[in-house]
């Protein structure tokens, strides 16, 4: 119960009620609530100033970036962007099947997107030529 009152103060009174409906703004109710919750809210805010040390905030963020770089796509010299393409169903099936075959042959990071990226790279290099 105490936690609910404190969270209401933090969110400025805009929160869903216990039945899941938004509560209307009632000045008298707010005043009454403030009377009872103000000391508690104040005591809840008291520990905040010592937590203003920037070191523990920045360190985990850097670690998260490193972890994401290791887990995610391999780093390239260029920025990655998300692009939506429209393919024929048979083309999607072909790409998925090819990626699946490559994964079965040990290329664990093979995916339809990786195949398309490699295809564009080969086009850039001139290794693959378009018929028109």
């Amino acid at each position: 119960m105490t936690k609910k009152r404190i969270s209401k103060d933090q969110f400025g009174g805009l929160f869903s009620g216990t039945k899941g409906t938004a509560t209307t703004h009632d000045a008298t109710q707010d005043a009454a609530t403030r009377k009872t919750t103000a000391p508690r809210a104040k005591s809840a805010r008291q520990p905040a100033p010592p937590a203003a040390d920037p070191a523990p905030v920045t360190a985990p963020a850097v670690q998260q970036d490193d972890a994401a770089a290791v887990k995610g796509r391999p780093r390239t010299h260029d920025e990655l962007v998300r692009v939506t393409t429209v393919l024929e169903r048979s083309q999607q099936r072909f790409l998925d099947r090819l990626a699946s075959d490559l994964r079965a042959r040990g290329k664990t990071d093979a995916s339809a997107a990786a195949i398309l990226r490699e295809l564009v790279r080969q086009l850039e290099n001139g290794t693959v030529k378009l018929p028109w």
Partner: protein
Amino acid sequence: MTPELTLTTAEARHLQWCAGRGYFPDDFAAHVIQHLSDWDDARPHVVPIPEHLIHSLVLMRVDCPDDYLTCVAPDLRDRLTALETLVD
């Protein structure tokens, strides 16, 4: 006797991915995933497969032969086709 399929959780997740792409029946994948939800190891587990799910697999083979079991690894494909023979 209820037909059974032996598969790992990784295979079950792959079947779910295939179902999302339309290469495998949704209800079949959901059943397998639900059955293996308590497991998080690499060991194969036995999942009882109700006949109506095997029928939906057979139906897919007939209706969408191009999509049927696309991207499913050959060994798992063999186990699934073996299931089909039980209801054919």
